């Protein structure tokens, strides 16, 4: 994403008094107790059922009414088992990868939204790993439905889910090179000419920083 070659403001470019050009960085700290809603109860239950809580959970984040447990990857399967069996999170709604190239040694995040049918609750697990060592233990043994979701995340990001029964590409062709959802993977596309004017492909268009 560059803004060279085409018109576009340098600097803030804000001449309108438009206040939107300020970026708010995402919080990186842990949330303070009380978390509110049922989140305290979930955290308490997990601490009680899982003595290694403080060792396995790196951060507990409550943001926008959602609870995220940042789990160390070595402890992921253990935590998942406890959450499923003791805290009754019967369903895992899959896994979604996110690539943060600027976050050294934590470039990839895998995000697992969990759902408890018994208690009607939702929480989220997040595991972060380095690009150079993009391995995460598979949760297919815990929730069989994660099978395709992990294959998709592998296909799109190249995160390797250790212990997955058949980690192959699922959406892209088998012989495809690269992992399309990585930020360093160009979108591609061709310029389109219409009535004498040329519109460049999306990833060459100017973008607002």
């Amino acid at each position, binding site marked *: 994403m560059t803004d060279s070659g085409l018109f576009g403001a340098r600097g803030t470019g804000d001449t309108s008094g438009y206040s939107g050009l300020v970026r708010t960085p995402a919080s990186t700290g842990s949330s303070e107790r009380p978390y509110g809603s049922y989140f305290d109860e979930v955290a308490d239950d997990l601490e009680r059922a899982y003595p290694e809580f403080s060792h396995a959970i790196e951060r507990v984040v409550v943001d926008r009414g959602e609870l995220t447990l940042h789990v160390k990857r070595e402890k992921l399967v253990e935590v998942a088992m406890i959450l499923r069996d003791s805290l009754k999170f019967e369903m*895992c*709604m899959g896994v*979604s990868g996110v690539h943060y190239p600027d976050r050294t040694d934590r470039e990839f995040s895998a995000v697992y939204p969990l759902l408890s*049918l018994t208690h009607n609750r939702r929480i989220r697990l997040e595991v972060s790993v380095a690009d150079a060592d993009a391995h995460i233990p598979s949760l297919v043994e815990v929730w*069989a439905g994660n099978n*395709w979701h992990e294959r*998709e995340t592998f296909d799109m990001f190249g995160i390797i889910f250790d212990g997955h029964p058949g980690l192959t590409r699922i959406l*892209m062709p088998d012989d495809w090179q690269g992992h399309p959802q990585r930020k360093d993977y160009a979108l591609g596309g061709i310029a389109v000419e219409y009535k004498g004017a040329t519109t460049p492909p999306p990833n060459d268009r100017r973008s*607002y920083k």
Partner: protein
Amino acid sequence: MTTFDPYAPSRDTTEGTVFSVTGGDWDSLIQEIGSTKEERVVVNMGPQHPSTHGVLRLVLELEGETVTEVRCGIGYLHTGIEKNMEFRNWTQGTTFVTRMDYLSPLFNETAYCLAVEKLLGITADVPERASVIRVMMMELNRISSHMVALGTGALELGAITPMFFAFREREIVLDIFEMISGLRMNMAYIRPGGVQQDLPEGAIPKIRDAVKTMRKNFKDNTTLLVGNSIWLKRTQGIGYLDLAGATTLGITGPVLRSTGLPWDLRKVQPYCGYENYNFDVITADTCDVYGRFLIRMNELEQSLRIIEQALDKLEKLEGAPVMVADKKIAWPAQLALGSDGLGNSLNHIREIMGTSMESLIHHFKLVTEGFHVPAGQAYVAIESPRGELGASVVSDGGTRPYRVHFREPSFNNLQATAAMSEGGMIADIIGAVASIDPVMGGVDR
């Protein structure tokens, strides 16, 4: 080996003899297969097979007519929507998500917009009229989607007439969509902050008429299929999946409700004000294709009930805003359809170009740059016709989505094909897949 047949050539491989069928003479193929000693046959079904519900490829291992193993091959409709969205602004995202599951575009848009609104922190500011319109549009969409599920499902099992009835009803709904948004599919009508434009004049009486017509017309398919002995033989006890299987596979929607669990996000985790409507959650306890069929049939009536209540609310909210008041998010444009069914309101253009500098600036900024969304992530789940449709949206604080991932119920539920079909007859795979109702646009995205 018999003489060479150009329509059914065969070659020997380490896996056994491979026959390529390109149409034409099936007799010679059957003769050849009959001459081999092996009972076990591996058949490729699809991706261009009329009854695999889209470009779904099924690799079947058969012993006679019994299926011993099923594997799904997907990805034939992968269009990289999630990647593309990272290069467009937040509002443009709706134009992309609407194309994922093309039979339920309004659900995709709503899930995405609710997630963006959550990130913006404006969930409570969305005007009531916008939420009611969203609910009404979603329920209309549920009807049109269930109509395709029922119609194609019946067609795939050999019943052609239900398809005609189903598409007749779907057409009524699509006409309403066209009247309201200008488009029959992929409307991008629901936008972060509200909806793109208000209902056109005369929409409410027209929808009331349509509800009346549909309620009458639905009886045609009911009398044709419910209790029909051939239909029962093709669907009862077929595609069995119980509650334990459904939870471990993450199955939601009609397939989960066919195990007897009344899990419907509209009831248990309401959004868009669903808690203010009276409707029932339909379940079945048969865990089979027939149960799922009955659930879809009965959900039609519940959707009609919700639409009627939404219309009552809309009449009371006449003239109320359909977009958040925040001028840094809502476009100043009051878009309206021209007589050609397209375009912008000339009055609006005249106003912003001629008299309002502020509107012009805001319009320009919002269209070219878009609005900024505070950094963070959100997961919003809604009940689509196929189950839990989840939108995971990540923002880095910019004017474009940093990452959007859709948890598509079709994608997830298709995993149940093997559990439903292995050990059954080959003809029953069709019924099982049809009862999952996967939409390949949603599966592959």
